[in-house]
């Protein structure tokens, strides 16, 4: 994969910020207010996180962060940590 360009003067959103925003996406999509997310977390850890919710999560994340994932990227995500890293890498890159 090509290295992603980083624009000058537009530093990528800090991981904590991503974390916070991601948490509210999870809470909204899964409709549960007491969700905490960790880097190691996977769909296996949350009952409601099935394929239907997964689609909604992905598209809600894309909307919230103004980014777009490729199929290969979605396929390679193994846990929430991968998702955070991918969001971070894509920040500042036009969707």
């Amino acid at each position, binding site marked *: 994969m090509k290295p992603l360009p980083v624009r000058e003067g537009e530093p990528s959103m800090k991981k904590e910020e991503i974390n916070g925003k991601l948490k509210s996406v999870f809470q909204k999509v899964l*409709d549960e207010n007491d969700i905490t997310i960790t880097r190691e977390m996977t*769909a*296996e850890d949350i009952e409601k*996180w*099935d*394929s*239907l919710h*997964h*689609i*909604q999560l992905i*598209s809600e994340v894309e909307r919230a962060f103004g980014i777009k994932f*490729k*199929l*290969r990227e*979605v*396929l390679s995500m193994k846990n929430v940590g991968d998702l955070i890293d991918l969001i971070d890498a894509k920040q500042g890159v036009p969707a």
Partner: protein
Amino acid sequence: MMGDQNRTSTMGTSILSRFIECSTQFPDNPAIFVDDRSYTYGELNGLCSAMCALLKAHDIKKGDRVGIFTENNIYAYASLLGILSCGACYVPLNYDNPVERNMGIIADAGIKVLLYTEKEDKARELSVSPGTECWPLNNRVTPNPGKLDPVDQMHADLCYLLFTSGTTGKPKGVPIYHRNLSAFLDMMLESGRYDFNRNDRFLQMFELTFDLSVFSFLVPLSVGASFYPIPRERMAYLEVADTLETREITVALMVPSVINYLKPYFGEINLPKMRYSLFCGEALYHETLCGWAKCVPYAKIENLYGPTEATIFCLRYEWQRGELPHPQGKGIVPIGRPMEGMDAFKINENSLDEEGELCLNGEQVTLGYWNNPSKTAEVFGTTKNGKKFYRTGDLCKIDQAGNFLYLGRIDNQVKIDGHRVELEEIEFHTRVFCRDKQVVAAVNTSEAGSHFILLFIESEKDLRNGLREHLKKHLPDYMIPKEIITVSPFPLNSNGKTDRKALINKYLENSSMRSVA
């Protein structure tokens, strides 16, 4: 009751004879790719033969029901074929089902032996059923060098028994007999419609409890091809996308949900090796299919239709690239015409109605439900000419070209990712929990085109606490409502009945307000 279905003639070809022939002709060809390796026809045959010997040694014989705790591994397929070759009937059990549901199925089916490989704890929970033994497989079966030698099968012998959602709160059993499956295989392999061959690689994305799995493993094994089961995970559609590409799948039978899910990525998917892209199990949307067709530029695309009661599928529509949406289809691809050896017709209360209930008759149709004469009498009938037929509960009409169009259900059955769900079954278990409050289960479609279940309870108090857990004890995951809403009172229609549509619309208004806020 069985009439001529009870003939004692031996069949010309057993449903396994093609597989055995392939194993003899090409023992070194790959048959199945699972657990990160491939197994050849010779190896698979050896394992089946060992399974068959083990079952025979324990006096498993014709007519006996043997349960398989479905795992996605070589033993699941070897035991399934082993069970068939010793003349018995296989009953797949999904270990994601609640224990109570599986116990009910074991009792209803009268399962003698339950085979399992992993998830021993879950199997042990079930072995308390009286009269059912529980056997682990991985350490008991070593390949048998002897050739698989199936016992002679009769048309009327049981082949498999599947359980689907039932309106009374209890799953109902659909027995499929050798004559039914044999007719299906003949139609697929002898009609000259398909040119499957030993270079083909089939996708197998279905749980064994879903009869589309039978197409996906038995057809490849009958022509010397290989098949690729998808690991059972929650994001199965992503695994499917990955397998289609990396394994260069040439024949893929999928539920339309898969391509609904993959829609955002159509531009990135290119599968030039695909020869047959087949769909079954749900309504297939023309627009989605147009997008998908570009991902499979050389594939023949077919929309297939059929309930479990008529063995896998029995109507076919050959979709042509560039064709326009059917003028009467409401965006849904037609389900076409009956396949070779089958007959379809519609019945309506008023003979002038265009729409009617789709009925099926032919060798693929089973005799009736398992241990359920009242349900059987309800939906299996006999025509004036003495032909037996099955009423599908699907509403249809027939266009001028003779193609059947699927219009919906005449009852409250819905499909969730291809799984049949009777909404009454959810309502039944909810009512038990909520002490006979009025409840309505309904299905709704998301923006992405996937379906989910909503459950409404008529109550001023919030009765949801513990309900979800209660439902999980009785229902499989795909039947668990996405949202539970308490409403008081329920809106009524002009007949004084609960207005389901109004309930859903009210919910949608509220939820769109919520997401705007």
